Protein backbone atom coordinates (compact mmCIF):
# COMPACT_ATOMS: atom_id res chain seq x y z
CA UNK A 1 0.00 0.00 0.00
CA UNK A 2 2.46 2.63 1.19
CA UNK A 3 5.10 1.13 -1.06
CA UNK A 4 3.37 0.99 -4.42
CA UNK A 5 -0.30 1.87 -4.41
CA UNK A 6 -0.05 5.36 -2.99
CA UNK A 7 2.84 6.42 -5.25
CA UNK A 8 0.96 5.07 -8.28
CA UNK A 9 -2.19 6.90 -7.23
CA UNK A 10 -0.21 10.09 -6.70
CA UNK A 11 1.28 9.90 -10.17
CA UNK A 12 -2.14 9.35 -11.68
CA UNK A 13 -3.96 12.11 -9.81
CA UNK A 14 -1.24 14.75 -10.17
CA UNK A 15 -0.69 13.73 -13.79
CA UNK A 16 -4.30 14.06 -14.85
CA UNK A 17 -4.90 17.33 -13.04
CA UNK A 18 -1.71 18.83 -14.43
CA UNK A 19 -2.63 17.80 -17.97
CA UNK A 20 -6.10 19.33 -17.71
CA UNK A 21 -4.69 22.50 -16.16
CA UNK A 22 -3.53 23.62 -19.61
CA UNK A 23 -7.10 23.78 -20.88
CA UNK A 24 -8.51 25.76 -17.98
CA UNK A 25 -7.95 29.52 -18.15
CA UNK A 26 -9.60 30.17 -14.78
CA UNK A 27 -7.34 31.94 -12.25
CA UNK A 28 -7.61 28.95 -9.90
CA UNK A 29 -5.94 26.83 -12.56
CA UNK A 30 -3.15 29.38 -12.89
CA UNK A 31 -2.78 29.35 -9.13
CA UNK A 32 -2.48 25.56 -9.19
CA UNK A 33 0.20 25.86 -11.87
CA UNK A 34 2.21 28.43 -9.92
CA UNK A 35 1.96 26.42 -6.72
CA UNK A 36 2.99 23.19 -8.42
CA UNK A 37 5.99 24.90 -9.97
CA UNK A 38 7.10 26.04 -6.52
CA UNK A 39 6.47 22.63 -5.00
CA UNK A 40 8.39 20.91 -7.77
CA UNK A 41 11.39 23.16 -7.28
CA UNK A 42 11.11 22.76 -3.52
CA UNK A 43 10.78 18.98 -3.51
CA UNK A 44 13.42 18.59 -6.22
CA UNK A 45 15.85 20.80 -4.33
CA UNK A 46 15.65 18.61 -1.24
CA UNK A 47 17.37 15.83 -3.19
CA UNK A 48 20.57 17.87 -2.92
CA UNK A 49 21.19 16.50 0.58
CA UNK A 50 21.37 12.89 -0.55
CA UNK A 51 23.48 14.00 -3.49
CA UNK A 52 25.91 15.78 -1.18
CA UNK A 53 26.21 12.72 1.01
CA UNK A 54 27.07 10.75 -2.10
CA UNK A 55 29.59 13.36 -3.21
CA UNK A 56 31.34 13.45 0.14
CA UNK A 57 31.34 9.68 0.54
CA UNK A 58 32.69 9.22 -2.99
CA UNK A 59 35.70 11.38 -2.16
CA UNK A 60 36.02 10.30 1.47
CA UNK A 61 36.46 6.65 0.48
CA UNK A 62 39.19 7.72 -1.91
CA UNK A 63 41.16 9.39 0.86
CA UNK A 64 42.35 5.93 1.77
CA UNK A 65 43.69 5.25 -1.71
CA UNK A 66 47.10 6.71 -2.28
CA UNK A 67 46.66 7.65 -5.94
CA UNK A 68 43.42 9.54 -5.27
CA UNK A 69 43.91 10.90 -1.75
CA UNK A 70 45.38 14.38 -2.39
CA UNK A 71 42.90 15.12 -5.17
CA UNK A 72 39.82 13.97 -3.32
CA UNK A 73 41.01 15.97 -0.32
CA UNK A 74 41.13 19.03 -2.57
CA UNK A 75 37.63 18.30 -3.85
CA UNK A 76 36.25 18.08 -0.31
CA UNK A 77 38.10 21.21 0.81
CA UNK A 78 37.00 23.22 -2.24
CA UNK A 79 33.44 22.17 -1.57
CA UNK A 80 33.60 23.12 2.11
CA UNK A 81 35.30 26.43 1.35
CA UNK A 82 32.77 27.39 -1.31
CA UNK A 83 29.84 26.42 0.92
CA UNK A 84 31.28 28.34 3.84
CA UNK A 85 31.95 31.58 1.96
CA UNK A 86 28.56 31.24 0.30
CA UNK A 87 26.64 30.99 3.54
CA UNK A 88 28.75 33.41 5.54
CA UNK A 89 29.78 36.05 3.02
CA UNK A 90 26.70 35.87 0.81
CA UNK A 91 26.43 35.67 -2.98
CA UNK A 92 26.31 39.40 -3.68
CA UNK A 93 28.62 41.42 -5.93
CA UNK A 94 32.18 41.65 -4.64
CA UNK A 95 31.81 38.67 -2.30
CA UNK A 96 34.46 35.95 -2.18
CA UNK A 97 31.78 33.55 -3.39
CA UNK A 98 31.29 35.57 -6.53
CA UNK A 99 35.03 36.01 -7.07
CA UNK A 100 35.43 32.24 -6.79
CA UNK A 101 32.75 31.84 -9.38
CA UNK A 102 34.21 34.35 -11.83
CA UNK A 103 37.87 33.46 -11.50
CA UNK A 104 37.78 29.76 -10.64
CA UNK A 105 34.58 28.12 -11.81
CA UNK A 106 33.91 30.24 -14.91
CA UNK A 107 37.39 29.84 -16.49
CA UNK A 108 37.38 26.11 -15.74
CA UNK A 109 33.99 25.87 -17.35
CA UNK A 110 34.93 27.93 -20.38
CA UNK A 111 38.16 26.02 -20.92
CA UNK A 112 36.47 22.64 -20.61
CA UNK A 113 33.90 23.89 -23.13
CA UNK A 114 36.63 25.08 -25.49
CA UNK A 115 38.25 21.62 -25.52
CA UNK A 116 35.39 20.81 -27.88
CA UNK A 117 37.27 22.59 -30.68
CA UNK A 118 40.06 20.06 -30.37
CA UNK A 119 37.69 17.14 -30.11
CA UNK A 120 35.87 18.29 -33.22
CA UNK A 121 39.18 18.26 -35.05
CA UNK A 122 40.24 14.82 -33.85
CA UNK A 123 36.79 13.35 -34.40
CA UNK A 124 36.73 14.67 -37.98
CA UNK A 125 40.18 13.35 -38.67
CA UNK A 126 39.63 9.97 -37.07
CA UNK A 127 36.03 9.14 -37.88
CA UNK A 128 35.07 10.99 -41.05
CA UNK A 129 35.89 8.17 -43.44
CA UNK A 130 33.90 7.48 -46.59
CA UNK A 131 33.23 3.92 -45.44
CA UNK A 132 29.63 3.63 -46.53
CA UNK A 133 26.99 5.55 -48.44
CA UNK A 134 25.62 7.12 -45.26
CA UNK A 135 29.03 8.04 -43.90
CA UNK A 136 29.97 9.61 -47.23
CA UNK A 137 26.84 11.74 -47.29
CA UNK A 138 27.50 12.99 -43.78
CA UNK A 139 31.12 13.70 -44.61
CA UNK A 140 30.40 15.59 -47.82
CA UNK A 141 27.68 17.75 -46.28
CA UNK A 142 29.85 18.58 -43.30
CA UNK A 143 32.69 19.43 -45.67
CA UNK A 144 30.56 21.76 -47.80
CA UNK A 145 29.13 23.51 -44.76
CA UNK A 146 32.57 23.92 -43.18
CA UNK A 147 33.86 25.53 -46.32
CA UNK A 148 30.83 27.81 -46.67
CA UNK A 149 31.10 29.22 -43.18
CA UNK A 150 34.70 30.31 -43.60
CA UNK A 151 35.68 33.69 -44.93
CA UNK A 152 36.78 32.05 -48.18
CA UNK A 153 33.35 30.55 -48.79
CA UNK A 154 31.92 33.96 -49.62
CA UNK A 155 34.29 34.41 -52.55
CA UNK A 156 33.05 31.38 -54.47
CA UNK A 157 29.85 32.18 -56.34
CA UNK A 158 26.89 30.01 -55.37
CA UNK A 159 28.41 28.81 -52.10
CA UNK A 160 26.55 31.19 -49.75
CA UNK A 161 23.29 30.27 -51.49
CA UNK A 162 24.08 26.57 -51.21
CA UNK A 163 24.68 26.97 -47.48
CA UNK A 164 21.35 28.71 -47.01
CA UNK A 165 19.63 25.95 -48.95
CA UNK A 166 21.24 23.08 -47.05
CA UNK A 167 20.42 24.66 -43.72
CA UNK A 168 16.87 25.63 -44.61
CA UNK A 169 15.73 22.59 -46.57
CA UNK A 170 17.30 19.16 -45.94
CA UNK A 171 18.65 20.10 -42.51
CA UNK A 172 15.29 21.52 -41.45
CA UNK A 173 13.36 18.54 -42.84
CA UNK A 174 15.49 16.03 -40.95
CA UNK A 175 15.21 17.96 -37.70
CA UNK A 176 11.46 18.26 -38.06
CA UNK A 177 11.04 14.59 -38.86
CA UNK A 178 13.01 13.62 -35.77
CA UNK A 179 11.12 16.15 -33.65
CA UNK A 180 7.73 14.70 -34.62
CA UNK A 181 8.78 11.21 -33.59
CA UNK A 182 10.47 12.49 -30.45
CA UNK A 183 7.45 14.43 -29.28
CA UNK A 184 5.16 11.45 -29.89
CA UNK A 185 7.56 9.23 -27.96
CA UNK A 186 7.93 11.67 -25.10
CA UNK A 187 4.17 12.17 -24.79
CA UNK A 188 3.69 8.40 -24.83
CA UNK A 189 6.26 8.01 -22.06
CA UNK A 190 4.54 10.68 -19.98
CA UNK A 191 1.18 8.97 -20.51
CA UNK A 192 2.67 5.58 -19.62
CA UNK A 193 3.94 7.00 -16.35
CA UNK A 194 0.61 8.58 -15.50
CA UNK A 195 -1.29 5.40 -16.38
CA UNK A 196 1.13 3.33 -14.33
CA UNK A 197 2.36 1.22 -17.25
CA UNK A 198 5.91 2.49 -16.90
CA UNK A 199 6.96 1.82 -13.33
CA UNK A 200 10.68 1.22 -13.36
CA UNK A 201 11.07 4.14 -10.98
CA UNK A 202 9.18 2.04 -8.43
CA UNK A 203 11.90 -0.56 -8.76
CA UNK A 204 10.45 -2.59 -11.64
Amino acid at each position, binding site marked *: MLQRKIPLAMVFVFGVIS*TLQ*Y*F*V*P*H*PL*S*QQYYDTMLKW*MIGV*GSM*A*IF*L*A*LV*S*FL*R*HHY*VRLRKKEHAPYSAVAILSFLFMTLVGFIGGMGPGSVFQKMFYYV*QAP*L*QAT*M*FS*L*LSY*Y*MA*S*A*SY*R*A*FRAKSFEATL*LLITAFIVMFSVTTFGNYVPGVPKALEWIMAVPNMAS*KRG*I*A*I*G*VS*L*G*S*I*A*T*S*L*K*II*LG*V*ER*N*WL*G*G
Partner: protein
Amino acid sequence: MVLNLIVFMLAASGVLKVTDIPNDDGSRLKVEYLIPESFDSAFLYRVSGDKSVLIKRPTNKEGVIVDMGLSYKKEYRYRLVVYADTMKKEYESALVKPRASWFDTSQFPLFIVVILYTGLLLFYLQHARSGKSLYLRPIAGLQAVDEAVGRATEMGRPILYVPGLSSISDVATIAALNILSHVTKKAGEYETKILVPVRDPVVYTIAREIVKEAYYSIGRPDLYNENDVFFATDSQFGYAAHVSGTMVREKTATNFFLGMFWAESLILSETGASTGAIQIAGTDAVTQLPFFIVTCDYTLMGEELYAASAYLSKEPMLTATLKGQDAMKIIILVVIGALSILNLFGVHVTLGLF
Protein backbone atom coordinates in the same frame (compact mmCIF):
# COMPACT_ATOMS: atom_id res chain seq x y z
CA MET B 1 -15.46 81.44 -22.47
CA VAL B 2 -16.27 77.89 -21.53
CA LEU B 3 -19.80 77.03 -20.67
CA ASN B 4 -18.98 73.65 -19.23
CA LEU B 5 -22.25 72.21 -20.16
CA ILE B 6 -22.37 68.75 -18.71
CA VAL B 7 -24.50 66.14 -20.37
CA PHE B 8 -24.96 62.61 -19.07
CA MET B 9 -25.72 59.87 -21.47
CA LEU B 10 -26.17 56.23 -20.63
CA ALA B 11 -25.14 52.98 -22.23
CA ALA B 12 -28.21 52.79 -24.40
CA SER B 13 -26.71 55.47 -26.63
CA GLY B 14 -24.33 52.86 -28.14
CA VAL B 15 -21.31 55.08 -27.66
CA LEU B 16 -19.63 52.64 -25.34
CA LYS B 17 -19.92 48.90 -25.74
CA VAL B 18 -18.21 46.63 -23.24
CA THR B 19 -18.02 42.87 -23.74
CA ASP B 20 -16.29 40.01 -22.00
CA ILE B 21 -13.40 38.34 -23.82
CA PRO B 22 -14.09 34.61 -23.88
CA ASN B 23 -11.66 31.79 -22.97
CA ASP B 24 -9.59 33.78 -20.56
CA ASP B 25 -8.96 34.02 -16.85
CA GLY B 26 -11.41 36.88 -16.47
CA SER B 27 -8.80 39.58 -16.50
CA ARG B 28 -9.81 41.29 -19.73
CA LEU B 29 -12.72 43.24 -21.19
CA LYS B 30 -13.18 44.54 -24.70
CA VAL B 31 -14.20 48.20 -24.84
CA GLU B 32 -15.50 49.60 -28.13
CA TYR B 33 -16.27 53.28 -28.47
CA LEU B 34 -17.86 55.37 -31.15
CA ILE B 35 -17.94 59.08 -30.43
CA PRO B 36 -20.88 60.63 -32.31
CA GLU B 37 -19.56 64.22 -32.63
CA SER B 38 -16.22 65.81 -33.45
CA PHE B 39 -14.21 66.69 -30.38
CA ASP B 40 -11.05 68.37 -29.12
CA SER B 41 -10.07 65.85 -26.53
CA ALA B 42 -11.49 62.73 -24.98
CA PHE B 43 -10.72 60.62 -21.93
CA LEU B 44 -11.71 57.05 -21.27
CA TYR B 45 -11.91 55.96 -17.63
CA ARG B 46 -12.40 52.60 -15.97
CA VAL B 47 -14.57 52.85 -12.85
CA SER B 48 -14.72 50.14 -10.21
CA GLY B 49 -16.30 51.00 -6.88
CA ASP B 50 -15.31 54.57 -6.24
CA LYS B 51 -11.97 54.23 -8.04
CA SER B 52 -11.59 55.73 -11.48
CA VAL B 53 -8.53 55.18 -13.71
CA LEU B 54 -7.71 56.86 -17.03
CA ILE B 55 -6.98 54.09 -19.52
CA LYS B 56 -6.84 55.90 -22.86
CA ARG B 57 -7.02 59.28 -24.56
CA PRO B 58 -8.82 58.51 -27.81
CA THR B 59 -7.78 60.56 -30.83
CA ASN B 60 -10.05 58.90 -33.37
CA LYS B 61 -13.81 58.83 -33.32
CA GLU B 62 -13.99 55.10 -33.03
CA GLY B 63 -11.74 52.43 -31.65
CA VAL B 64 -11.43 49.22 -29.74
CA ILE B 65 -9.24 48.58 -26.78
CA VAL B 66 -8.64 45.54 -24.63
CA ASP B 67 -8.54 46.49 -20.99
CA MET B 68 -6.28 44.10 -19.09
CA GLY B 69 -5.30 43.32 -15.54
CA LEU B 70 -8.87 43.13 -14.21
CA SER B 71 -10.31 40.77 -11.63
CA TYR B 72 -13.15 38.37 -12.37
CA LYS B 73 -14.48 39.01 -8.90
CA LYS B 74 -15.20 42.71 -9.52
CA GLU B 75 -17.62 44.70 -11.66
CA TYR B 76 -16.50 47.49 -13.95
CA ARG B 77 -18.06 50.47 -15.63
CA TYR B 78 -16.42 52.61 -18.32
CA ARG B 79 -16.82 56.34 -18.63
CA LEU B 80 -15.95 58.45 -21.64
CA VAL B 81 -15.52 62.19 -21.17
CA VAL B 82 -15.50 64.26 -24.34
CA TYR B 83 -14.61 67.95 -24.67
CA ALA B 84 -15.70 69.80 -27.77
CA ASP B 85 -14.96 73.54 -27.76
CA THR B 86 -17.54 74.64 -25.24
CA MET B 87 -19.05 71.36 -24.29
CA LYS B 88 -18.18 68.56 -21.94
CA LYS B 89 -20.09 65.36 -22.42
CA GLU B 90 -19.98 62.19 -20.39
CA TYR B 91 -20.99 58.75 -21.52
CA GLU B 92 -21.18 55.75 -19.29
CA SER B 93 -21.41 52.05 -19.97
CA ALA B 94 -23.41 49.48 -18.07
CA LEU B 95 -21.77 47.50 -15.27
CA VAL B 96 -19.89 44.53 -16.66
CA LYS B 97 -18.24 41.66 -14.85
CA PRO B 98 -15.44 39.84 -16.69
CA ARG B 99 -15.95 36.10 -16.76
CA ALA B 100 -13.29 33.54 -15.89
CA SER B 101 -13.76 30.47 -18.08
CA TRP B 102 -13.44 26.87 -16.91
CA PHE B 103 -12.59 25.57 -20.34
CA ASP B 104 -10.72 27.25 -23.16
CA THR B 105 -12.87 26.37 -26.17
CA SER B 106 -10.19 27.63 -28.55
CA GLN B 107 -8.02 24.75 -27.29
CA PHE B 108 -10.74 22.20 -27.91
CA PRO B 109 -9.09 20.71 -31.02
CA LEU B 110 -5.87 20.16 -29.09
CA PHE B 111 -7.86 18.56 -26.29
CA ILE B 112 -9.35 16.14 -28.82
CA VAL B 113 -5.86 15.26 -30.06
CA VAL B 114 -4.71 14.50 -26.50
CA ILE B 115 -7.78 12.30 -25.97
CA LEU B 116 -7.27 10.60 -29.32
CA TYR B 117 -3.67 9.73 -28.59
CA THR B 118 -4.44 8.50 -25.09
CA GLY B 119 -7.24 6.39 -26.56
CA LEU B 120 -4.92 4.88 -29.15
CA LEU B 121 -2.39 3.90 -26.49
CA LEU B 122 -5.11 2.41 -24.28
CA PHE B 123 -6.48 0.48 -27.25
CA TYR B 124 -3.14 -1.14 -27.93
CA LEU B 125 -2.59 -1.80 -24.23
CA GLN B 126 -5.89 -3.64 -24.14
CA HIS B 127 -4.78 -5.53 -27.22
CA ALA B 128 -1.56 -6.52 -25.48
CA ARG B 129 -3.47 -7.89 -22.51
CA SER B 130 -5.12 -10.37 -24.86
CA GLY B 131 -1.68 -11.89 -25.16
CA LYS B 132 -0.98 -11.51 -28.88
CA SER B 133 2.66 -10.85 -29.62
CA LEU B 134 3.43 -7.74 -31.63
CA TYR B 135 6.19 -7.38 -34.20
CA LEU B 136 8.94 -4.78 -33.81
CA ARG B 137 11.69 -4.32 -36.34
CA PRO B 138 15.25 -4.78 -35.03
CA ILE B 139 17.31 -1.76 -33.97
CA ALA B 140 21.07 -2.23 -34.28
CA GLY B 141 22.12 -0.20 -31.25
CA LEU B 142 19.86 -2.16 -28.94
CA GLN B 143 21.01 -5.55 -30.10
CA ALA B 144 24.53 -4.41 -29.26
CA VAL B 145 23.75 -3.62 -25.61
CA ASP B 146 24.21 -7.16 -24.29
CA GLU B 147 27.27 -7.69 -26.44
CA ALA B 148 28.84 -4.52 -25.06
CA VAL B 149 28.27 -5.64 -21.49
CA GLY B 150 29.86 -8.97 -22.38
CA ARG B 151 32.92 -7.27 -23.75
CA ALA B 152 33.60 -5.42 -20.51
CA THR B 153 33.34 -8.75 -18.70
CA GLU B 154 35.87 -10.37 -21.03
CA MET B 155 38.30 -7.55 -20.50
CA GLY B 156 37.69 -7.50 -16.76
CA ARG B 157 37.13 -3.75 -16.77
CA PRO B 158 34.19 -1.69 -15.56
CA ILE B 159 31.23 -0.30 -17.50
CA LEU B 160 30.45 3.41 -17.46
CA TYR B 161 26.81 4.43 -17.64
CA VAL B 162 25.92 8.12 -18.07
CA PRO B 163 22.14 8.65 -17.80
CA GLY B 164 22.30 12.04 -19.49
CA LEU B 165 22.79 15.40 -17.82
CA SER B 166 19.23 16.58 -17.56
CA SER B 167 16.65 16.41 -14.81
CA ILE B 168 13.86 13.91 -14.35
CA SER B 169 11.41 16.17 -16.17
CA ASP B 170 13.18 15.22 -19.38
CA VAL B 171 11.64 12.09 -20.89
CA ALA B 172 15.06 11.09 -22.22
CA THR B 173 16.27 10.79 -18.62
CA ILE B 174 13.39 8.47 -17.76
CA ALA B 175 14.19 6.33 -20.80
CA ALA B 176 17.85 6.23 -19.80
CA LEU B 177 16.97 5.08 -16.29
CA ASN B 178 14.83 2.29 -17.71
CA ILE B 179 17.73 1.05 -19.79
CA LEU B 180 20.00 1.37 -16.74
CA SER B 181 17.86 -1.19 -14.98
CA HIS B 182 18.34 -3.64 -17.83
CA VAL B 183 22.08 -3.02 -18.20
CA THR B 184 22.64 -3.42 -14.45
CA LYS B 185 20.90 -6.78 -14.45
CA LYS B 186 23.06 -7.97 -17.34
CA ALA B 187 26.22 -6.65 -15.71
CA GLY B 188 25.18 -8.28 -12.45
CA GLU B 189 24.84 -11.65 -14.10
CA TYR B 190 28.44 -11.38 -15.26
CA GLU B 191 29.56 -9.72 -12.01
CA THR B 192 30.94 -6.77 -13.93
CA LYS B 193 31.25 -3.46 -12.14
CA ILE B 194 29.09 -0.60 -13.41
CA LEU B 195 29.89 3.05 -12.65
CA VAL B 196 27.04 5.55 -12.80
CA PRO B 197 28.09 9.18 -12.30
CA VAL B 198 25.07 11.49 -12.13
CA ARG B 199 24.67 15.23 -12.48
CA ASP B 200 21.15 15.93 -11.28
CA PRO B 201 20.43 15.31 -7.57
CA VAL B 202 16.92 13.92 -8.15
CA VAL B 203 18.15 11.67 -10.95
CA TYR B 204 20.92 10.51 -8.63
CA THR B 205 18.43 9.39 -6.01
CA ILE B 206 16.35 7.51 -8.58
CA ALA B 207 19.35 5.94 -10.32
CA ARG B 208 20.55 4.66 -6.97
CA GLU B 209 17.19 2.99 -6.28
CA ILE B 210 17.06 1.48 -9.74
CA VAL B 211 20.52 -0.06 -9.51
CA LYS B 212 19.81 -1.40 -6.04
CA GLU B 213 16.52 -2.94 -7.17
CA ALA B 214 18.09 -4.39 -10.30
CA TYR B 215 20.71 -6.28 -8.29
CA TYR B 216 18.03 -7.37 -5.86
CA SER B 217 15.82 -8.70 -8.65
CA ILE B 218 18.55 -11.01 -9.97
CA GLY B 219 19.24 -12.21 -6.45
CA ARG B 220 22.58 -10.46 -6.05
CA PRO B 221 22.01 -7.61 -3.58
CA ASP B 222 25.60 -8.18 -2.45
CA LEU B 223 26.89 -6.66 -5.70
CA TYR B 224 25.45 -3.24 -4.91
CA ASN B 225 28.13 -0.79 -3.88
CA GLU B 226 27.01 2.61 -2.60
CA ASN B 227 29.93 4.31 -4.33
CA ASP B 228 29.32 3.00 -7.83
CA VAL B 229 26.29 5.21 -8.35
CA PHE B 230 27.49 8.64 -7.34
CA PHE B 231 26.64 12.29 -7.59
CA ALA B 232 29.58 13.82 -9.52
CA THR B 233 28.71 17.52 -9.47
CA ASP B 234 25.88 19.59 -10.86
CA SER B 235 28.02 21.78 -13.14
CA GLN B 236 27.74 20.68 -16.77
CA PHE B 237 31.41 20.96 -17.60
CA GLY B 238 32.58 20.02 -14.14
CA TYR B 239 30.71 16.80 -14.74
CA ALA B 240 32.31 16.42 -18.17
CA ALA B 241 35.77 16.94 -16.64
CA HIS B 242 35.21 14.44 -13.87
CA VAL B 243 33.70 11.77 -16.11
CA SER B 244 36.49 12.24 -18.68
CA GLY B 245 39.02 11.74 -15.93
CA THR B 246 37.16 8.68 -14.68
CA MET B 247 37.12 7.10 -18.16
CA VAL B 248 40.86 7.53 -18.53
CA ARG B 249 41.78 6.37 -15.02
CA GLU B 250 39.35 3.50 -14.54
CA LYS B 251 39.90 2.38 -18.16
CA THR B 252 36.22 1.62 -18.67
CA ALA B 253 35.76 -0.95 -21.44
CA THR B 254 32.18 -0.03 -22.34
CA ASN B 255 30.60 3.41 -22.18
CA PHE B 256 26.88 4.10 -22.34
CA PHE B 257 25.80 7.68 -22.98
CA LEU B 258 22.02 7.59 -22.89
CA GLY B 259 19.64 10.43 -22.13
CA MET B 260 19.68 14.16 -22.66
CA PHE B 261 22.98 15.80 -23.59
CA TRP B 262 24.18 19.25 -24.48
CA ALA B 263 27.52 20.45 -25.79
CA GLU B 264 29.46 18.12 -23.49
CA SER B 265 28.38 15.11 -25.59
CA LEU B 266 31.49 15.24 -27.76
CA ILE B 267 33.84 15.76 -24.79
CA LEU B 268 32.55 12.52 -23.28
CA SER B 269 32.40 10.43 -26.44
CA GLU B 270 35.71 11.57 -27.92
CA THR B 271 37.55 10.97 -24.64
CA GLY B 272 35.90 7.55 -24.54
CA ALA B 273 37.00 6.86 -28.10
CA SER B 274 40.58 7.77 -27.20
CA THR B 275 40.61 5.08 -24.50
CA GLY B 276 39.40 2.51 -27.01
CA ALA B 277 36.15 1.77 -25.23
CA ILE B 278 33.14 0.40 -27.09
CA GLN B 279 30.49 3.11 -26.94
CA ILE B 280 26.72 3.08 -27.21
CA ALA B 281 24.99 6.43 -27.23
CA GLY B 282 21.40 7.51 -27.48
CA THR B 283 19.74 10.88 -27.20
CA ASP B 284 16.77 12.86 -28.41
CA ALA B 285 18.86 16.04 -28.56
CA VAL B 286 18.92 16.56 -32.33
CA THR B 287 21.85 18.94 -32.13
CA GLN B 288 24.05 16.38 -30.35
CA LEU B 289 23.19 13.34 -32.48
CA PRO B 290 25.80 14.08 -35.18
CA PHE B 291 28.62 14.00 -32.63
CA PHE B 292 27.52 10.69 -31.17
CA ILE B 293 27.02 9.19 -34.62
CA VAL B 294 30.54 10.16 -35.63
CA THR B 295 32.30 9.05 -32.44
CA CYS B 296 30.31 6.10 -31.05
CA ASP B 297 29.92 2.53 -32.24
CA TYR B 298 26.14 2.57 -31.98
CA THR B 299 23.76 5.48 -31.62
CA LEU B 300 20.09 5.37 -30.74
CA MET B 301 18.51 8.27 -32.58
CA GLY B 302 15.63 10.25 -31.13
CA GLU B 303 12.69 8.07 -30.24
CA GLU B 304 14.70 4.87 -30.60
CA LEU B 305 15.93 5.80 -27.14
CA TYR B 306 12.40 5.76 -25.73
CA ALA B 307 11.58 2.56 -27.55
CA ALA B 308 14.59 0.89 -25.96
CA SER B 309 12.86 -0.01 -22.73
CA ALA B 310 10.14 -1.86 -24.66
CA TYR B 311 12.72 -3.63 -26.82
CA LEU B 312 14.99 -4.71 -24.01
CA SER B 313 12.33 -5.82 -21.55
CA LYS B 314 10.13 -7.40 -24.25
CA GLU B 315 7.30 -6.49 -21.92
CA PRO B 316 4.07 -6.65 -24.01
CA MET B 317 2.58 -3.60 -22.28
CA LEU B 318 5.51 -1.45 -23.34
CA THR B 319 5.58 -2.89 -26.84
CA ALA B 320 1.92 -2.02 -27.13
CA THR B 321 2.52 1.68 -26.56
CA LEU B 322 5.10 1.63 -29.35
CA LYS B 323 2.35 0.34 -31.62
CA GLY B 324 0.20 3.23 -30.45
CA GLN B 325 2.94 5.66 -31.39
CA ASP B 326 3.25 4.11 -34.83
CA ALA B 327 -0.49 4.39 -35.39
CA MET B 328 -0.34 8.06 -34.42
CA LYS B 329 2.49 8.61 -36.90
CA ILE B 330 0.33 7.27 -39.71
CA ILE B 331 -2.53 9.54 -38.67
CA ILE B 332 -0.19 12.53 -38.66
CA LEU B 333 1.22 11.68 -42.08
CA VAL B 334 -2.29 11.31 -43.48
CA VAL B 335 -3.27 14.68 -42.05
CA ILE B 336 -0.15 16.33 -43.46
CA GLY B 337 -0.84 14.77 -46.87
CA ALA B 338 -4.53 15.63 -46.95
CA LEU B 339 -4.10 19.24 -45.85
CA SER B 340 -1.24 19.70 -48.33
CA ILE B 341 -3.39 18.49 -51.21
CA LEU B 342 -6.26 20.73 -50.13
CA ASN B 343 -3.88 23.67 -50.01
CA LEU B 344 -2.75 22.92 -53.56
CA PHE B 345 -6.33 23.55 -54.62
CA GLY B 346 -6.51 26.69 -52.57
CA VAL B 347 -8.62 25.23 -49.77
CA HIS B 348 -7.03 26.15 -46.46
CA VAL B 349 -8.14 23.90 -43.62
CA THR B 350 -6.63 24.36 -40.16
CA LEU B 351 -8.66 21.92 -38.05
CA GLY B 352 -8.34 24.62 -35.41
CA LEU B 353 -4.74 23.52 -34.86
CA PHE B 354 -2.48 24.79 -37.59
